[in-house]
């Protein structure tokens, strides 16, 4: 996307100004988004993003700029402006570019620019819509969406790295509203991956529609949730968002280097119940959070974060590794050329155990079964987090009693990791978007069902 001679001249210029490291990140991102509403196509949107991010590093100081233009003069002007306060004699040499093609472990067939047809996606979404509406005459509205994206990246660095990759993302979703005349409730289902539209052979329009309507109808019948501290069973799949937020973000060198993580000095220590094993893995074939190379050009890897409750690794990008001394983990990611890379999660999950969901429910006298979780957030410095329950049930005397609504779980990362007492055998993954200092990136969360012995449930009862 950028000719090598231009890249060379810009990086030479940065190093001539005394920079320790210089990098160009070139991105072309093409998107197509189809939305349906009221059993019709509401809109089709498309577009092309193109730009170049320029990163210049002096020590651990990161200088970053970006532009939509490709001329050498404009890129050199940005370098000069960024380096104005740090000029010094050159202290390093520029290595010769050595191009390496990535090992493509996420090959896509029906990509946005080859073989993916709007008609087929529309058919999928309208079928899901019909299934949802057929479930009950209380389904009053549905909204569908199918976003396909083809992101091409090219990276040049002063260390001689020249890498490129093409990432094909797709995600389809349906949300449903159920209404009984007096009240309304919502339900939704989505799936996606680092794959082309051939994903429609694996994800089922019937399941998408029926799951969205089932959840909306369950929530329509839900009662106010009891409040207070109690045991909670968190369901598989997107329930893993709690580990992602409460622990994963605290293991990124973005927080660790600033000592803004409660875990920054606990490598090798027991930070979780010994039943907990956790991984961040970018290599899982065609998963939503996977990559071939990270946004710094390093091949991705599988990183064991917690083993038998013991903290075994942090997630480090280039600058984070430099700041902390820990090895890079192929975790340098960014939303687009508009962001400098930072250490970020990929597919992050708690590994399966051998407990059964029924046994977890049976062990509860008074508590909540949070079968589906929504989003949340965490404050890294203190580990305090909050998460919404999108489908939950009140449990009493070992039995599920009735659905509950408007519930939130709050605790701290260190506390909840030690309160996990049972890890199930029903492992599942789910896709989401993670927002942090380098923007919003696709990430997968996952876990089997877990029992947390004591957590604060915020309800309205």
């Amino acid at each position: 996307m950028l000719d090598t001679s231009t890249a060379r001249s810009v990086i030479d210029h940065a190093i001539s100004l005394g920079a320790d490291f210089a990098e160009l990140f070139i991105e072309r991102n093409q998107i197509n988004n189809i939305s349906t509403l009221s059993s019709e196509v509401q809109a089709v949107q498309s577009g092309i993003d193109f730009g170049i991010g320029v990163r210049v590093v002096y020590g651990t100081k990161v200088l970053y700029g970006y532009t939509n233009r490709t001329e050498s003069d404009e890129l050199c002007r940005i370098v000069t402006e960024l380096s104005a306060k740090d000029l010094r004699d050159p202290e390093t040499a520029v290595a010769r570019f050595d191009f390496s093609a990535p090992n493509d472990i996420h090959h896509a067939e029906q990509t946005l620019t080859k073989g993916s047809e709007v008609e087929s996606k529309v058919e999928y979404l309208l079928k899901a819509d019909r299934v949802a509406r057929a479930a009950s005459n209380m389904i009053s509205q549905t909204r569908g969406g199918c976003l396909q994206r083809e992101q091409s990246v090219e990276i040049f660095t002063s260390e001689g790295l020249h890498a490129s990759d093409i990432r094909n993302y797709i995600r389809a979703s349906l949300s449903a509203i159920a209404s009984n005349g007096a009240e309304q409730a919502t339900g939704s289902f989505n799936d996606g991956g680092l794959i082309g539209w051939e994903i429609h052979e694996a994800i089922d329009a019937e399941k998408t529609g029926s799951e969205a309507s089932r959840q909306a109808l369950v929530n329509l019948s839900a009662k106010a949730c009891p409040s207070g501290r109690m045991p909670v069973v968190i369901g598989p799949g997107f329930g893993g968002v709690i580990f992602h937020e409460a622990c994963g973000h605290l293991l990124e060198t973005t927080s660790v280097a600033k000592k803004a993580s409660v875990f920054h000095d606990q490598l090798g220590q027991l930070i979780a119940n010994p039943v907990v094993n956790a991984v961040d893995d970018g290599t899982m074939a065609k998963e939503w959070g996977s990559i071939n190379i990270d946004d710094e050009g390093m091949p991705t890897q599988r990183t064991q974060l917690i083993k038998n409750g013991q903290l075994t690794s942090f997630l480090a990008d280039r600058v984070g590794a430099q700041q902390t001394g820990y090895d890079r983990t192929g975790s340098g990611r960014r939303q687009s050329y508009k962001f400098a890379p930072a250490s970020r999660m990929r597919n992050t999950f708690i590994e399966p155990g051998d407990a059964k969901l029924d046994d977890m429910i049976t062990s509860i006298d008074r508590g909540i079964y949070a079968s589906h979780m929504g989003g949340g957030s965490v404050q890294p410095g203190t580990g305090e987090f909050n998460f919404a329950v999108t489908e939950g049930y009140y449990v009493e005397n070992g039995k599920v009693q009735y659905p509950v609504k408007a519930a939130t779980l709050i605790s701290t990362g260190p506390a909840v990791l030690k309160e996990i007492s049972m890890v199930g055998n029903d492992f599942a993954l789910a896709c989401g978007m993670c927002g942090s200092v380098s923007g919003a990136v696709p990430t997968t969360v996952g876990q089997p069902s877990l029992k947390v012995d004591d957590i604060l449930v915020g309800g309205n009862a």
Partner: protein
Amino acid sequence: MEAAERILQWITEAGATGDLMVAEGASLSLKARDGDLEEHKVSSSQVFGVRVIKDDKAGVAYSEASDNAALRLMVDQALINASYARRDVNEQVPDKAITLATDDSLLAPTDDVSVEEKIDTVLRLERELAARDKVKNVPYNGVSDVTAAQRIFSTAGLKATSRVRACFSQAAALVEDGDKNVMEGWGQGARRFDELDIDNIVETAHANCLALLHGEAVPTKHYDIIFDTQCQPTMFSTFSMMFSGKAAKDGINPMRDKVGEAIADARLNLFDSPLLDEGFGYALFDDEGSPTARTPLIANGNLATLIHNSATASHFGLQTTGNGARSPRSTLEVQLHQFEIGSGEAEDDAITSGEYLELTDLTGTHSGANPVAGDFSFGASGFLCRDGERIQPVRNITVAGNFYEMLNKIGLIGQTRYWDMNRHAFMPRIRFSDVAISG
């Protein structure tokens, strides 16, 4: 602008109408760490976005590349996209052959602050907060200076230009005392960089940390609640879909059929007030070139109107309220400019009499709210108060309820009105009764 004329000509030649939006921006952002500059980021960007309407079907497309071939491809793609859309006779390019422009001296004023002085500012911000009592470090801090320009051209002859500048500074400190820790912060927005008050940000961020450091949960029960000047606008913004004419047209706004009905306490008067020029939501015209106005949303407790663009207004047989919103990447939507709540009658002493919780921080507002149903459950912190005095810092609690029901649980509305930190809302304090708190 030559490219704009070319694009509009292509649209016309295709037998369509449409509009072009060109957004340009330039920004500087700086962060400090341990006494040195950690991040220095500069940018310049441009994006073109078209909306075409052909045979009563609308399609949009955008491009960050500005060469002739890329712009032509963008128009062709928008026409293809329109062919898949449902027919909607209500969405048309407004018949406005007018030229509009914002006032740079008001919305994008200049100052003489150099980049070096801005770097010194962020270094001072971090240094002075880090030097305060019990502060371990200042992991999140920064200053930014952003100028954004937007130009809209339509096949009907509209030429609308707007330019705004926004400078921000913020800092959050991690404070420790024994086994207790807390992270709190403060920030400020301004049109000019030299209006940023760094001393106040340091003072307020540190005071917020110390005030909450030894916070504990309060017993689970229902309390009277007063949200602070940040949290109260957050609550109204989280449920702002209740005023959306677009959501009503789409069948997802629960207030769709309640215009004219009582939905709130009769003392509540809520407006969309784009003409308050102290606010960052100030606007004389919307993204369709329609003039804006102070729009009553709730009048004496009754839902007065929903907000509309030209398409949603036409759908309901009404006039646009000047709330049309579009970016180069998006379809036509509606958007509030800035909230204003009318003054109430309660004096400060009355608002704060007896026991209540003052909530100063809400977490999970992006995930713990359901605007379709009105239900919410958020993490919260603040203070247990009695007769205006903070008697206990409170952390690790949740606040839950139904926002639409809360609008009828208003105890008192204050006389004095305050802008929020980001200057998007101008409201008096409201005391809500009987809200569920878990601790």
